[in-house]
């Protein structure tokens, strides 16, 4: 299978190389055969139908495609799928359990930290990485951590509040 965009694809040209990648996505082992040039964001979106990972700029500026790569936020639109071989990837779909939202998800809703929702998955994953490392960040630390993620709707103020809300909740304060 060279194409991840079609259920059944015609026979690929013989000179198209294929690589097998195996990775853990949201705790589940997954494998795919991909062209080496396939971007990680496209593998997630088209290959595994995890469409919560968005692409907004193609140049690593907007952060809509942010996922956690071995726990660290990376922009999956400028990373090759083959680079994820053997690694652990968390997408927005992996944040909540069946019954419970992550505090960051709750915070975004409580503090009106989203409007169109397009930047939200990337914002939340960047925020999760921050809080995993720094459970009690200052407003400036939150703003700095989020500065690789663009939002065109909210003006960030409520996003910052959402992250601080989540931090407080994770610390057991309400």
């Amino acid at each position, binding site marked *: 299978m060279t194409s991840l965009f079609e259920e059944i694809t015609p026979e690929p040209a013989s000179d198209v190389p294929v690589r097998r990648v195996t990775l853990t996505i949201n705790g589940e082992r997954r494998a795919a055969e991909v062209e080496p040039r396939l971007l990680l964001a496209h593998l997630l979106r088209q290959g595994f139908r995890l469409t919560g990972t968005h692409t907004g700029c*193609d*140049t690593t500026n907007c952060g809509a495609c942010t996922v956690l790569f071995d726990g660290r936020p990376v922009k999956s639109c400028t990373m090759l799928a083959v680079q994820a071989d053997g690694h652990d990837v968390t997408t927005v779909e992996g944040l909540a359990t069946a019954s419970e939202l992550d505090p960051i998800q709750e915070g975004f809703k409580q503090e*009106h930290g989203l409007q169109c929702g397009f930047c939200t998955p990337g914002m939340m994953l960047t925020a999760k990485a921050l809080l995993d490392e720094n459970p009690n960040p200052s407003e400036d630390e939150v703003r700095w951590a989020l500065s690789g993620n663009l939002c065109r709707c909210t003006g960030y103020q409520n996003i910052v509040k959402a992250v601080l809300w989540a931090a407080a909740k994770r610390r057991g304060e309400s």
Partner: protein
Amino acid sequence: MTALDEIKIGGLGSSRKRVEDNRFIRGKGNYFDDVVLPGMLHMEILRSPLAHARIRSIDTSKAWDIPGVRLVLTGEMMAARNLAWMPTLSYDTQAVLATDKVRFQGQEVAAVIADDPYIAKDACEAIVVDYEPLPVIVNPTQSLAPGAPLIRDDKENQHDNVVFDWEVGDKDGTDRAFEQADLVSRLDLHYPRSHPSPLECCGSIADFNRATSKLTVYMTTQAPHIIRAAVALVAELPEQMIRIISPDLGGGFGNKVPVYPGYVVSILASILLERPVKWVEDRSGNLISTGFARDIYLHGEMALRKDGKILGVRMHTTSDHGAFFSDAQPSKFKIGLMHSAFSCYDIPAAHLTARGTYTNKAPGGVAYRCSFRVTEAMFFQERMVQAAADDLGMDQAEFRRMNFVKDDDFPHRTPYGFLTDSGQYRKCLDLGLEAIGYQDFQKQKAEAKSRGRLLGIGISTMTEPLGAGNSREYDILGIKMFDSADLKVHMTGKALLRTGAKTQGQGHETTWAQIVAHELGIPAEDVTVEEGDTDTAPFGMGTYASRSTPVAGAAVAMVSRKIRAKARKLAAHLLEVSEEDIEWELGRFYVRSAPNRGVSIQECAMAAYSNMPDGMEPGLENTAYYDPPNLTWPFACYIATVEVDPQTGVWDVLRVVAVDDCGVRINPMIVEGQIMGGLTEAYAMANMQFITFDADGNCIGSNFMDYLLPTAWETPGFELHEVVTPCPHHPIGAKGIGECATVGGPAAFVNAVMDAIKDTGVRNVDMPLLPDRVYEAITQRHDVSGAPPVKSDD
């Protein structure tokens, strides 16, 4: 029995949490690129690298040879189907795929449809286009110069690069005002080109089904019904066989109103191939080819009396529309609502002349969180007001206060002829001044100055027209700008509401339900809101120009009232009294003489399906079309304080205070979210966000590395305050809020920086106030213009 608590059921004034968030925070939104249809193919567009060039030939043979390529389309093939050109929403034409020549960098030249988008991209690179370069025009000065090359040689009777000449106002009266003036204040300004850049780019999935002849198109559009009409007219398909679905939109800001060539090509490709065809625009394509904003020059003059009274205003604008006049705007007004400038001021006479020009740049002009050029109007207004106050040596707040329309002077005819209906401009300004600590700041500023620091304070006050609009004056391509709502109350009292608007982050799914709750007492959580599917939604003109709440929102209230009127008859039947003996309180009808005897709205709903009186039509459903009697006029005061570093020209925002009057607030949380988002875009415009071109027409700003958008780090915090003056003609007294801060905000930041460097004698630095521009102003003590020759073109 007590009436329902409106806040508890999520009615007006409730900051209920957003319904749509439940899917967005789980990554379960349904944006168009998330849609996958069986057998779907992928389209990629080849764009012109040159800004102006004749096409000698296009060789697509190598593209056809690539395995997986299904179709390669060129302008010639489009022309064979009479689709090489399409009409725009402003009575111009636009090339779908270029045939004769390319007129801007990024113009659509060819398209490839393939099994996968990577293959389509490969194939685009395999297309060979032979261009003959032509002289390039990148600004109106070049465009209007004698002997300038003709950009639109495709149009009969077009012998120059002028798109339109238009005027409004009282020329003679204005001339007389200037004769009586003690002082004339003049200012030349450039509002630079910008781009709305919603985080999601544009795109479409066209799915033509030969067996049923039905065309379904998933499309990033803020106005699906306009698109359906356009497709019916352009492609000559029967309108009932066209279904436009606008799924979740990743922002719009006006970028997703026009009809783009990619939509049209994907539709034709699907018809030819009989398979779904998906086109996903990349960010560069979005930035260099879709609806930009602004790019307009002003020469402004203000006639002043010594005591500070404004006697008259003259404005002349020269706008750069790019290669095609493709704005979506009311057809009567060629430069949008530019003539809404100075509406909050009591000025006896004003005259505006406007000239539009073609250039070798991407088409557009109107888009971007703006009710048809009011952003430029209010910026020009507030920069002229500040300059006039400075020229008079008057305090900028006092100058505004004395020229405001007074609270009891409504209805008021504005200088250019609009009718405003209400306003408390002084109260709004005074609240802002108090919040920022105006007097204290002046002391701080003086004290800082003595230590070589430059502090400044900038004010911007304005009222802007929203909610286009009444059908007497507002139409797009002849279609009147009303809007609609359709409400179906089910037998259990739960409801489904659909409108002709289209949310793109504003939260309609939350707020429309609140209007229903207010009117009917049905809890907001029992009302599902749907928009964006032309097969199910009532006809409406969509969401832009802050028109959702003023027009569609009003329709929601009106359809709820129609439902209530029928429910009253049902209540009378259930209570066995005559309708005249029935009273209403939120969620319940009762017998006037026996208030304990009542029925709930839910009981009425059940009766509509199970126990209606003889002769009554069953069901509890209705539709309302709302044609607003006037525009709505929210007003605001934005104040910013800044510190300018004289060594570098860098300026930092100290504080931002916003006082907004958008009338009755449906959901205060969402209103505040809209204001903060708008203020951020205002800050962006003033500080960093612009798109310019080099002399060859290369777009400088074709990606987010070059086109700077503010991040959480630079963006200042905002302090919000409110004044509430209900709109006198809107059913629930609301006015709209989505764009106010973007419109009024930029002048506050620019005025603040100008105030900080006032001692240099500099009267203007054009946006964006980049450090090098401010530094030049401070050190060279002269104005810094964005007008050609453009500084950044060096």
